[in-house]
């Protein structure tokens, strides 16, 4: 087994401390006194999330992966409050390597749950950034509605996201994306798209 530190091939960064931070960072962050009033910053967050939605709608998965830091997380909890992923399974909990696994699988040509592939349009709204308490890091709540059409049927998936974003000179990068589906604790039909 390689011990090279590349998070694309090994997973050394998902440690106890990483989980501790995750649980802490995603608890009680949506406080009125932490909201960001700067209209330009709010607008920049909105534009960033809209671009992410477009990349997923257009199946530009490499570009989507490039939005994330190397040591990132994509997390779809199976309970409304997320809980501690060390104690409960999630709908999805992907480190960088598993995110790349997920994309790799979709591109194999044999991921039958996505043959034919879903067509989606994603609406992003109610974009509300919050100070995270860490320098240069924002927590952003946004609402989503995904209209999905596949194999002759349409459906919609709704919920809200919590993005933990690091501010860069020219934009943002995603540290953690948490997706809170309205029906996260219900039986889901073909949850094979990236949400």
């Amino acid at each position, binding site marked *: *087994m390689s*011990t090279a530190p590349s998070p694309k*091939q*090994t*997973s*050394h*960064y*998902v*440690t*106890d401390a*990483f*989980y501790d931070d995750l649980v802490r960072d995603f608890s009680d962050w949506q406080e009125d006194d932490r909201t960001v009033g700067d209209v330009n910053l709010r607008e920049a967050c909105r534009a960033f999330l809209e671009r992410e939605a477009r990349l997923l709608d257009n199946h530009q998965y490499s570009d989507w992966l490039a939005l994330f830091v190397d040591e990132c*997380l994509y997390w779809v909890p*199976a*309970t409304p409050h997320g*809980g501690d*992923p*060390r*104690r*409960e*399974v*999630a*709908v*999805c*909990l*992907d*480190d960088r*390597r*598993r995110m790349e*696994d*997920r994309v*790799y*699988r*979709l591109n*194999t*040509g*044999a*991921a*039958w*749950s996505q043959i034919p592939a879903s067509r989606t349009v994603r609406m992003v709204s109610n974009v509300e950034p919050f100070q995270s308490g860490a320098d240069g890091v924002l927590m952003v709540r946004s609402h989503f509605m995904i209209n999905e059409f596949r*194999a002759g049927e349409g459906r919609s998936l709704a919920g809200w996201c919590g993005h933990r974003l690091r501010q860069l000179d020219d934009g943002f990068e995603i540290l953690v994306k948490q997706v809170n589906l309205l029906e996260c*604790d*219900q*039986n*889901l*039909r*073909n*949850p*094979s798209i990236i949400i």
Partner: protein
Amino acid sequence: MDKLKPSGGGLSNVASPFEWDELVHEDRVHRSLYTDPDIFAAEMTYIFGGTWTFLAHDSQIPQNDNYVTTSLGLRPIIVVRDSDGVVRAMFNRCTHRGATVCRAVAGSAKLFQCAYHGWTYRNSGELSGVPWPDGYASNLKESKYNLAQVPRVESYRGFIFGTLNREAVSLADHLGPMAGIIDQWLDRHPGGRVQLCEANRLKYKGNWKLAYDNSADGYHVKFSHRSLLEMENRLVVGEEKGMSFYKESPDQAPMYVKYLGNGNHFKDKRPNVAQHPGALWEIEGRHPGMEYFEGRLRERLGDKAAHALDLSASEPVNINVFPNLLILGNHIQVLQPRAVDETDTTWYGTAVVDEEDELDGAVDDVNTLRMRTLESFPNFGEVDDAVNFEEIQRGLMAEEDPWIYMHRGLDVPGRVRTDESGIITAPATDEVFMRETFKHWKRLMASPPKLEIRREK
């Protein structure tokens, strides 16, 4: 086919309205078993009710007054450990007008109160009070006003089952040799037990039997799960991971499928895996945090780490208890029919409980790894099966081409062996487990059971 509607009433004993010999053959079954709403309605009475059905796991109701809601067929059920510690499966149906008396998924309650008119029941099912009882001339203490209950509730090592059929064999007889296989699955864990935890919950638009037919099917793996097999091995140099033993000649591999009677079957892939401690972990695919937690376990436990890591790895077995309990890997998967063409499959995760500290304080790390291994198959494997089930349901709309074949292995000399106790063993891709299950299914459907409920006196 000349058929009548089934009675639909669980309590009446009617002759079978279907011509089963025309629909179920040794080598094939008719599409209507998957598409006919009347057959589905009969199954919800004759099978889900007429035979032992898995209802809940002990660890969901560990304390007195704990309950969890579920279904027995389509009947809404509350499984409760009542205030005296008795495990009951009660109909979640007010005896007054029929509303459910409990809307929560799980919780703790001494009383259940109907939200419509306020009739209130003890968690043993007895009616404890109604608003303004002086408006009733009848005696509300009569047992007919107490909640209906599943008359037979039995459990095996934490797995709680119920049936409405007084004449059904005992649960022990229903399980037969499966009990020993469940023992093996449990006994690899400290204390011989597991704790149910959160689930990956999936749904497909297809008949429930499509999932049961799949549960011991070693024939589909290389095809249905091709994307998973490719994904799991994309970074691998050398020995392949996961289910790669299906890729070349699965029938020549040492794994096998066994039919153990009463619709129960077992696919055992353990013989494919080297037998030394740590061997299971070595073939596990890659999951978040693996390297870090593995390193920490090895540092803490030394030689004993291999055993702990194997507990985080997926046990390569499929233990299928007819009609709705599928124990696979570290999952307890429960099938819940919703309609003839709609099924929920709930993949409960299981956590290790280590009260005696057999793992030298490492149980939390083992479970952290285990949560991640549990997520893998529902995400990257089951979604493809579920869509294939939906495509079967779609294909079966072709009415004039009604047969579904399951004759792989049938009459092939030397392929299928039956021992003196009747246990049938075949290579991993054989469909003998389906053929035998449908014989059992046909017996159940052809002789409608006498179903009963009971109430507290």
